[in-house]
């Protein structure tokens, strides 16, 4: 079927484009594309996790940036104490963000709809302000990391191009894992609870437990993204978990089209490239970007992937 084939073609194109980026950079001598590519992929990892919640479970989390921040702070704080190996920092980053997701998820998931949006937002702010008040670790100003994490003692992340492919590997793994989860037994129950939670309960599923598990999964993936972000920038700051950042993550997945993992990656790239492009014109680019968002919210349902689908139907007649 055409749909099936396209379902395999699109991710191939996406990942081929990423894989080719360092080569293009080498050919054009523009090394900035490599770091931009790293940034896109790192946020795409977080966006995949958020899309899992919002797109497949209708759990509109407005505090997703907190997990990125936690992952990043795990790297920063460990490094400040002289522990700079990824074999320690990565598990710690994942565990910390997973535990935070578990603790907050227990409370958040008792609420629904708009309460859920606001309470996740509030917990995100809690993480933000807590980080801001960590005076020994830079407080408001953030914390500079001396060097990227080592891997079992080797400076594997040190070279930008090598690090690019490490991040690409993580993105691919996250993408495949999310795809598997969505299609699994677990994913089917989770998706079902979005469509009709009462029906799922009367079938015998404890919807809360499935949602909590999904929330923790998304939190852990967010922590992974934070771990990579801290390494990419060699810096962590409370700004990583500001509520504006959580809002941006939501915009990324809406740009791409909710409930499409390919869309989450495309949307992230579209958002960050658009930001890059607009800020090239004027420092006041948000004056253009804000109204653009309003237009997207009012008119562009289904995001880029949805638009492409509609376009295809139009061509076919």
């Amino acid at each position: 079927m055409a749909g099936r084939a396209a379902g395999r073609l699109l991710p191939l194109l996406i990942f081929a484009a990423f894989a080719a980026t360092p080569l293009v950079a080498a050919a054009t001598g523009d090394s900035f594309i490599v770091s931009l590519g790293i940034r896109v992929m790192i946020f795409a990892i977080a966006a995949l996790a958020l899309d899992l919640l919002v797109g497949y479970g209708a759990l509109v989390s407005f505090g997703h940036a907190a997990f990125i921040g936690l992952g990043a702070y795990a790297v920063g704080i460990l490094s400040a104490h002289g522990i700079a190996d990824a074999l320690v920092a990565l598990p710690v980053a994942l565990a910390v963000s997973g535990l935070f997701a578990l603790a907050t998820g227990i409370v958040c998931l008792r609420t629904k709809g708009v309460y859920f949006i606001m309470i996740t937002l509030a917990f995100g702010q809690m993480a933000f302000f807590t980080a801001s008040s960590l005076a020994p670790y830079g407080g408001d100003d953030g914390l500079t990391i001396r060097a990227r994490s080592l891997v079992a003692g080797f400076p594997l992340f040190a070279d930008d191009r090598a690090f690019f492919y490490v991040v690409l590997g993580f993105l691919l793994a996250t993408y495949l894992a999310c795809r598997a989860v969505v299609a699994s037994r677990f994913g089917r129950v989770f998706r079902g609870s979005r469509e009709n939670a009462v029906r799922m309960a009367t079938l015998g599923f404890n919807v809360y437990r499935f949602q909590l598990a999904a929330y923790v999964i998304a939190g852990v993936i967010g922590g992974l993204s934070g771990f990579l972000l801290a390494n990419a920038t060699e810096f962590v700051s409370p700004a990583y978990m500001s509520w504006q950042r959580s809002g941006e993550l939501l915009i990324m997945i809406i740009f791409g089209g909710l409930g499409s993992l390919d869309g989450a990656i495309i949307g992230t790239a579209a958002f960050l490239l658009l930001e890059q492009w607009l800020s090239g014109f004027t420092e006041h680019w948000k004056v253009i970007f804000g109204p653009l968002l309003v237009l997207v919210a009012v008119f562009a349902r289904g995001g880029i992937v949805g638009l492409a689908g509609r376009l295809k139907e139009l061509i076919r007649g």
Partner: protein
Amino acid sequence: MSTTLLVVQILNGLQLGVLLFLIAAGLTLVFGVMDFINLAHGVQYMLGAYLAVMFYGLTGSFLAGLVLALLAALAFGLLLEFAVFRHLYDRDHLDQVIATFGVILFLNQGVKLVWGAAPLTLPIPELFSGSVRLMDGLLYPVWRLVVIASGLVAGVLLYGLVAHTRVGMLVRAGATDAPMVSALGVDIRRLFMIVFGFGTMLAGFAGIMVAPILSVEPGMGDTILILAFVVIVIGGIGSIRGAFLAALIVGLVDTLGRSFIVDILRLVMAPSPARTVGPALASMLIYLLMALVLYVRPTGLFPAKGR
């Protein structure tokens, strides 16, 4: 901790509380009646402050500045309602979040463009400048007392409006069961506009009143917006009474927590870790409070909706 300090901090907490109430009241009504999540409510507070600074500069009178700024804030709010929000009432919450987020980006940057990024100040009106002696060794700025008083008065007025007028009755009915109200043949669009305009004005009023004691700067509405969310979540969406009570609780807990938590922690731990942990814990307090309230009562203290 001395009694004087405690009284001062309680007053400061009350001041933050009434401020939060003025903002949360509009937010909770808009939410309760229209099921509309308006992130842009915070920038309307910011806009109130900026407009007050501008009109004060033009007229040289605080009162004139206040009135003009209120009217301008109202006009701008209605313009936003007409141009943007109206199209989103029956949409997904997510669409509302994105659109109002866009409005925030636009306005935060917009005020930077118009008034510059540097903080502005508004002088305290002559009549209320200076301090008043409340008790031995306790001088408290008069303007802060005025802020508290005006917030309390606004609270009482609002409560009277909602409890005793026809529009208020519709608002209460709308918060409980919106489809029912429109089934009664009420022009729901007009009701929405009234509620929205009113909420905008309250937020603007809050911004104007604190402009003399805070620095007026881009982004000043963002933090307060989140606090207002915490308030209405604790109070129960759509409930004025809940918003009022929760605003005072949050204002007091936050203020008192920040000033006294290190001292309290030192009772149980060494001074140096207390100084490290204290501030972090203080900034978490209201969120922990919210978590606790929601864990026990997932729809807040005074839920307006009967579900």
